[in-house]
């Protein structure tokens, strides 16, 4: 009888239990004590089944992404920050001004509440930085062993200014390709954390919000055709997707692509190619020649684009393929990855 006499088991104060996903009192406590104080805004506070927000007439952009990173906290960021920046960036590279996010949490039984608090605080801070509001959400709890602590899904809505229409399909031969900085820092940071490898003190995730950079770029080069953020699959996947979508060829120059020596060293060690490694604060833009210099200047004047450079151009040769001019002056394909890159035996 004693077990039944205790309505809230003791661990509920420190750990996520299945009851936190029940929709009952424990769920309400999560909302009242963790989510509301962190994300507070009028739309959320109504706690209706949906958020109701005002939007001006025009087009909106919608995007969604799920975040399953391990470890949850890593040098340069955490899963909370990623879940905001990632969706904000997906909206921003479409030329949209990010406004509202939803947040869905799948929590694993046994997750320390303190960990959830830290992640939620990080999301709130990231949202303020991006000037977006988290206006609706959901929480589910899965049994211990069925998740990696916490999975987060965010969906976002952004406003597309009149006259803006960006798409990979718009990319044309002759476009110059701009990249905002060095590759592979997020992927290599996560890999080295996961494997417990010490690869040098300056290795940290590049997780960053790109909405300001995208807006500045669009203001300086209103004729730009497309932007892409570089996440899983790295630069190579983004370029291949654009080449296929626009039925064009893409030519890039190995020498022009910035990679820090820490990332290069780690890639050599693991047998990985930095062109395929994940980023969380990098983007490319396809800009017509006439506006290319203005776009580069705009990128470089922003802290997240200080190291921006042209990495290549779009061509009508070899449509749907990405080629790379090597440091030796020869040419090779940059293929789409079939699966994850796996470290080589030797």
């Amino acid at each position: 009888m004693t077990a039944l006499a205790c309505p809230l088991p003791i661990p509920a104060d420190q750990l996520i239990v299945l009851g936190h996903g029940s929709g009952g009192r424990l769920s309400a406590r999560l909302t009242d004590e963790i989510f509301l104080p962190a994300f507070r805004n009028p739309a959320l506070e109504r706690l209706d089944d949906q958020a109701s927000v005002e939007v001006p007439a025009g087009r909106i952009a919608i995007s969604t992404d799920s975040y399953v990173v391990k470890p949850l906290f890593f040098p340069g960021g955490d899963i909370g920050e990623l879940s905001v920046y990632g969706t904000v960036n997906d909206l921003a590279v479409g030329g949209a001004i990010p406004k509202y996010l939803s947040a869905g949490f799948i929590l694993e039984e046994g997750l320390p509440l303190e960990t959830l608090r830290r992640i939620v605080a990080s999301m709130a801070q990231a949202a303020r930085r991006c000037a977006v509001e988290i206006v609706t959400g959901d929480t589910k709890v899965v049994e211990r062993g069925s998740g990696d602590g916490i999975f987060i899904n965010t969906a976002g809505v952004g406003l597309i200014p009149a006259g803006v229409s960006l798409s990979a399909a718009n990319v044309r031969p002759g476009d110059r390709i701009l990249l905002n900085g060095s590759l592979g820092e997020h992927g290599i940071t996560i890999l080295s954390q996961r494997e417990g490898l010490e690869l040098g003190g300056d290795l940290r995730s590049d997780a960053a919000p790109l909405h300001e950079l995208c807006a500045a770029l669009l203001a300086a080069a209103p004729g730009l055709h497309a932007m892409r953020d570089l996440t899983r699959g790295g630069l190579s996947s983004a370029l291949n997707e654009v080449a296929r979508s626009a039925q064009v060829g893409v030519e890039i120059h190995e020498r022009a692509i910035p990679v820090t020596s820490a990332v290069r060293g780690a890639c050599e060690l693991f047998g990985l190619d930095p062109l395929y490694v994940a980023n969380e604060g990098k983007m490319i833009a396809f800009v017509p020649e006439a506006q290319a210099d203005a776009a580069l200047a705009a990128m470089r004047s922003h802290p997240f684009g200080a190291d921006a450079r042209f990495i290549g151009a779009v061509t009508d040769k070899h449509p749907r393929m990405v080629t790379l001019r090597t440091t030796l002056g020869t040419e090779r394909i940059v293929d789409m990855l079939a699966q994850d890159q796996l470290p080589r035996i030797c």
Partner: protein
Amino acid sequence: MKHLDEYRDEKLANVLVDRLTQVAQHPWVLMEVCGGQTHTLVRYGIDDMLPAGMEMIHGPGCPVCVTPLEIIDKAITLALTPGVILASYGDMLRVPGSTTDLLHAKAQGAEVRMVYSPLDALKLARENPTREVVFFGIGFETTAPPNAAAVWQAARQGIPNFSLLASHVLVPPALRALLGAPGNRVQGLIAPGHVCAIVGLEQYEEIAREFQIPIVVGGFEPVDLLEAIVMLAEQLEQGRAEVENQYTRSVRVTGNPAAQRMLADVLEVCDRKWRGLGEIPLSGLKVRDKYAAWDAEIKFHLAPNPVEEPAECISSLILQGHRKPPQCPAFGIRCTPERPLGAPMVSSEGACAAYYQYRRHQSEDDLVALKGGSR
């Protein structure tokens, strides 16, 4: 990046290409033995930089590629055995056996762990005393010593739940098989630098004498390979057939005696089947009887399970340089890295996979014209 950029330097590469153009008066046919060298060669397009007529044949030295289907099937069987944790290097996990690969076995519930060293697998065994930990160790003389060291440590530290599923192969017997085959076209060899860093040069001197063929021990960066090619051309033009060492920053004449001792203590020479080349006598290494308790083949009573390779694969013609990968009718159509028909498409270091990854923008005619290869 120091110790790397200088070996990928365009100016230095061009100096070597100029030197090669002066030296090479004949259309020499050379083979780079190691898959790592093939990967660099195709990735950087070094074969495109050679004087007209000179040809590179891509050798059998991709350890993942030549691992026979049977042993991969055995690894998958072990991984699916309750109570067993199977650990291996990342690129072994998606190499297809006769029906599936280890990543798919993992998806079916097999306990498969990717590790960076056999010593990590030994640590897993220590941490999981109630489970059997099997390290699936493949490769040439390069990866054999650390695998041997793991068995040696398991024996010394009394770790009963660790074992090695070994499929090691030796380079010299495969080279003899290729050089001695009827219709051999190879006139000079770039020997595998990292293998020689372990075993030294003696075995290669025997091959140079036996087949009157020049051999240069080469590194793995573009400038290494170009320098090795120049050195081979010089020998060929001067009618010499010696062993020279281009990769002096890693390779000593006597190799690495400590690694050789470890290897000899734990492993012994045996007959071994090579994917794409078939059975080659005395071309492999297996765990010695005194370490039988740590030999997964014995511990788990793994029975022979012969498997036929797909008949359409022409890998033996590729490995002997009679065909280039794009000349295979199945290349890129019925044979891709996701669904390889045979050895050279399996790993990124295999010749077919390297062409698939880096060269699909060149047409077959371009390649044939470039190489002067037979159709």
